[in-house]
């Protein structure tokens, strides 16, 4: 039985580089950093005082009364989903809502709500918000996106740390291929630039401590990299069966060819240093998408700027693509936007789709001296992609040993 073809018909994002897809993409192409030194009072005692906050506060966009019922995670997700919905032209499309699904991931969930209500609890239990549970539950963002558009097929929240966004896209693809939905709003969200995550990731030695030079802190593949930069934001893609998209005359950015998911079976936090789990994810995505390494002309790497992770991924890419990695132009958007955790896969899938659509790969910044353990063809400035049929991979890996790769192709 032939697989149902699934295409991307809408994009929405809010990132450290801009409040929508166009400004975020322009920032990526320009090699602009979204990092800054935090000035909040709470940051003074922390070892890490830098992050990449969203460029546009979601409360500037979402109506006040609605915004106060949404955790920051859900606010960001709704902003991205509204843009994707409008971009896909779904508003007056007569879409059967029982055929509309949602898969919006998060790595951590409604942490602002959890912590602020814990503070309230310590003062007086009656001050705990009656909305605390629906705001802090990890599925809250997906649920609010579903409510926003009346989605009545499944509404899902995959949780796999920093692989979550890609897992949501994989799940959305499956829902359409299994015939459960015609359209799925798939993506991820994370808004947790707060003292606890900064302190906790810092205690894991996962974050860059380059406090005096925030824009240079995230430096994937560079010899002087010292950890990732915490970012925030959300990305939502409209996945749609090809048949449905063509029938309503939708514009199509790219095709989502396949998804590959694997687990390292190695360690809760360290990547498998041999790269074998990540390799299997990429291979599965290619097999599912009827692609071979020769087809892959671009890799949006997970490349968080941690010493171990960047090397393991480079090994994995070489194992998965072999000599064909020579022509797969690699880039690391986290050099500019930082690590968006559960939103990373979604926002970077959007970047991958746009790279195919516009046939240009955004640069990786801060790569001054390439680590000699890295064997990839890296774009350090904009790189044009060739004409003809192209495919690309977007990698996301998460604590817990989760690996998720998505294969996209031009249409």
């Amino acid at each position, binding site marked *: 039985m032939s697989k149902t073809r699934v295409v991307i018909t809408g994009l929405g994002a809010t990132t450290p580089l801009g409040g929508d897809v166009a400004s975020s993409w322009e920032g990526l192409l320009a090699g602009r950093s979204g990092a800054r030194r935090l000035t909040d009072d709470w940051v003074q005692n922390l070892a890490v005082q830098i992050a990449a906050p969203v460029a546009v506060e979601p409360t500037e966009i979402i*109506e*006040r*009364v609605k915004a*106060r019922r949404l955790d920051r995670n859900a606010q960001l997700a709704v902003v991205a989903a509204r843009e994707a919905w409008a971009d896909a032209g779904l508003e007056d499309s007569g879409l059967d809502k029982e055929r509309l699904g949602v898969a919006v991931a998060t790595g951590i969930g409604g942490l602002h709500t959890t912590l602020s209500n814990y503070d309230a609890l310590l003062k007086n239990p*009656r*001050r705990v*918000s*009656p*909305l605390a549970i629906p705001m802090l539950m990890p599925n809250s963002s997906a649920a609010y996106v579903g409510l926003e558009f009346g989605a009545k097929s499944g509404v899902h929240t995959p949780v796999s740390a920093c692989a979550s966004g890609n897992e949501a896209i994989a799940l959305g693809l499956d829902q359409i291929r299994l015939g459960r939905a015609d359209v799925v709003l798939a993506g991820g969200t994370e808004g947790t630039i707060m003292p606890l995550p900064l302190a906790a990731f810092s205690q894991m030695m996962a974050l860059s401590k380059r406090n005096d030079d925030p824009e240079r802190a995230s430096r994937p593949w560079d010899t002087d990299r010292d950890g990732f930069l915490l970012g925030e934001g959300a990305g939502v893609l409209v996945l749609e069966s090809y048949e449905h998209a063509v029938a309503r005359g939708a514009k199509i950015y790219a095709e989502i060819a396949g998804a590959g998911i694997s687990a390292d079976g190695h360690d809760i936090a360290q990547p498998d240093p041999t790269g074998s789990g990540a390799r299997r994810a990429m291979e599965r995505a290619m097999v599912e998408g009827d692609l071979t390494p020769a087809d892959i002309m671009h890799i949006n790497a997970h490349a968080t700027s941690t010493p171990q992770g960047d090397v393991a991924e480079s090994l994995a890419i070489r194992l998965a693509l072999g000599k064909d990695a020579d022509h797969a132009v690699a880039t690391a958007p986290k050099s500019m936007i930082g690590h968006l955790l559960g939103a990373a896969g979604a926002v970077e899938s959007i970047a991958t789709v746009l790279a195919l659509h516009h046939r240009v790969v955004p640069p990786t910044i801060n790569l001054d001296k390439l680590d000699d353990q890295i064997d990839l063809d890296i774009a350090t400035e904009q790189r044009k992609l060739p004409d003809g049929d192209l495919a690309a991979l977007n990698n996301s890996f998460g604590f817990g040993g989760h690996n998720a790769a998505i294969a996209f192709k031009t249409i």
Partner: protein
Amino acid sequence: MASTEEIRSDLAVIVNEIAGIPVEDVQLDKSFTDDLDVDSLSMVEVVVAAEEKFDVKIPDDEVKNLKTVGDAVAFIERGLNG
């Protein structure tokens, strides 16, 4: 001592903040649920905010009796005067 109108006016600000209802719509004869569309969770928030604003206790079993803005204002007045 706060007048009925002062209490109504302060309560209207709370209802506006929580549920987005225009302050001028929050009148004594209006039902929270039927006229103002304040749902049960928002009502809990309104009650807690009113307790803090007016420094009165509004027990949980009392909330179901506060059907209109006037009911709430009268309860708060009794609390302030009692």
